């Protein structure tokens, strides 16, 4: 039976291709996409437009002019003020593992760069480092990048990607919420633009601080943006929530996000907004 054999062969080819990582499966619609195409589309599924999470370097490459990025405060790292340990062991070990895994010292990378020639100060969160959690090092870097913008009269952009405040640094993590907002208050006083880009996920202490006080709120399609977790809310109100609850689109409808911008259009949109903000 010729066509049976053919089908088997194709299936086998597909399997081995996946093994070679030539194919990616969209985490959302499960479509098979050529890895090359996936990367070319900036890790966005061209079938369902699902936006996969990006690391900080990929954000730099996407949004800033080539070779324009200059890192600030690279030496600032995580801290262990509580000497915290849980059932899995010391926080210090977990943090060290995350440093090893990502090459980062904290959940955010900050620096300056240019967007079509316009110089900006930027903070880019990276979910790979402890779920993008907000802790002392994160807060300090975000504050310092904001103060740099104040000093050199630059617009400020924060790209959020976070599960919230990092429990392991306790109350110190919580205080990074007001701390970062203190810096943004200075930025406002200096009349400088602040653009908040919310990516998947932007939750908890991050959504309840710097992410939600931008002059402009831009979100990536279908990004999860919210304060409390879906399960917690469902348990509280004893009701099921709609499918699109806490998505970027839901937030636009409820008045908290200015626009949803596809990854491929993000740089151009930022440039346009910066021009409207009077930046050159």
């Amino acid at each position, binding site marked *: 039976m010729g066509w049976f054999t053919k089908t088997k062969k194709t299936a086998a080819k597909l399997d081995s291709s996946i093994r070679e990582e030539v194919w990616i499966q969209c985490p959302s619609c499960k479509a098979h996409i050529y890895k090359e195409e996936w990367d070319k589309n900036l890790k966005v599924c061209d079938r369902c437009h699902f936006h996969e999470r990006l690391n900080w370097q990929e954000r730099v490459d996407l949004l800033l002019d080539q070779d324009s990025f200059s890192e600030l405060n690279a030496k600032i790292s995580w801290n262990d003020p509580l000497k915290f340990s849980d059932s899995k062991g010391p926080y210090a070990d977990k943090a060290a593992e995350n440093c090893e895994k990502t090459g980062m010292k904290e959940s955010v990378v900050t620096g300056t760069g240019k967007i079509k020639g316009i110089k900006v100060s930027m903070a880019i969160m990276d979910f790979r480092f402890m779920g993008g959690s907000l802790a002392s090092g994160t807060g300090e870097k975000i504050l310092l990048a904001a103060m740099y913008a104040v000093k050199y009269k630059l617009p400020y952009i924060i790209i959020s990607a976070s599960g919230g405040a990092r429990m392991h640094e306790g109350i110190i993590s919580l205080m990074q919420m007001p701390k970062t907002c203190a810096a943004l208050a200075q930025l406002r006083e200096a009349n400088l633009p602040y653009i908040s880009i919310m990516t998947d996920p932007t939750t908890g202490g991050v959504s309840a601080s710097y992410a939600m006080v931008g002059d402009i709120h831009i979100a990536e399609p279908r990004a999860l943006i919210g304060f409390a977790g879906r399960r917690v809310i469902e348990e509280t*109100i004893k009701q099921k929530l709609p499918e699109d609850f806490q998505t970027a689109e839901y937030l636009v409808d409820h008045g908290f996000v200015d626009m949803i911008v596809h990854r491929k259009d993000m740089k151009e949109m930022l440039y346009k907004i910066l021009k409207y903000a009077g930046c050159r």
Partner: protein
Amino acid sequence: MSLDFEKDVADIEAKIEEFKAKNPEPTGSLVKDLNRLELERVEKLKETYANLTPWQTVQVARHPERPLIRDFINGLFSEFIELHGDRLFGDDHGMIGGFATLENHRIMVIGHQKGRDLDEKIKCNFGQACPEGYRKALRLMKLAEKFHLPIVTFIDTPGAFPGRDAEERGQAEAIARNLLEMFALKTPVIALVTGEGGSGGAIGIGVGDIVLMLSNAVYSVISPEGCASILWRDGSKAGEAANALKITAKSLLQLKIIDEIIPEPLGGAHRNHAATMKATRKTLLKHLNSLAKISPKKLTSRRFEKFAAMGRFK
């Protein structure tokens, strides 16, 4: 109502009640016996409360008879004029505020309302404020600024309300907005954690020039139960989580997150409201007097430096 770790104290208190019932007017050696029992009670209380674990402290902070905002208002202020509404949506019973007079100081008071009886508790969402609560707080804080009134906030919340409507009305944005705006307020702010400082729900009115805690209050990024269920995968390990999180007033003072601890009377604030008010009044007056001497410009720059220093380690 006594807490489980107060069992020894409860036993002696029961003995004292029994004794008093049997001997309503004791004389001679009976007086000595009663005094001995009272002394024993005091010693036991001292011992218990000198060695509270963080988890036991949480129980005290959540005690049903602990003073709540209306108790503080009635106990501290000669006048309170409540102000309602956020001018945008509604009036959150979980967050109240208004004009108040503390001796010679006219101030603006804002704080979480947990409610005393069950009906009130339900109306107040057990002190879990909604976006309209934080927005009311902000409106009142800006009003205070306009009228040159110092602000005193009373923090006692398990956390901001995690409801669908709250989420849809921008719970995150409401807290964030307060965090930003509190740094621009050109009037003194004193934040006092009287019971539970529940995470974002607390800090949403917690940006103070001076931050105080009652000695058995707690202040945390997440509840011990929440932390235990995530990091210990077992909600019953709340005791261990409470230890690890360092949520007591003593820890927070050491970590330089708060400025001063207001001592509670022996056996906790719930045992003696009057003494709690006395200690609170004294401390508030001290700070109101010293903050009054600082210019608005210096005030905001000091407030910035205070919070900028949090999380910086040598």
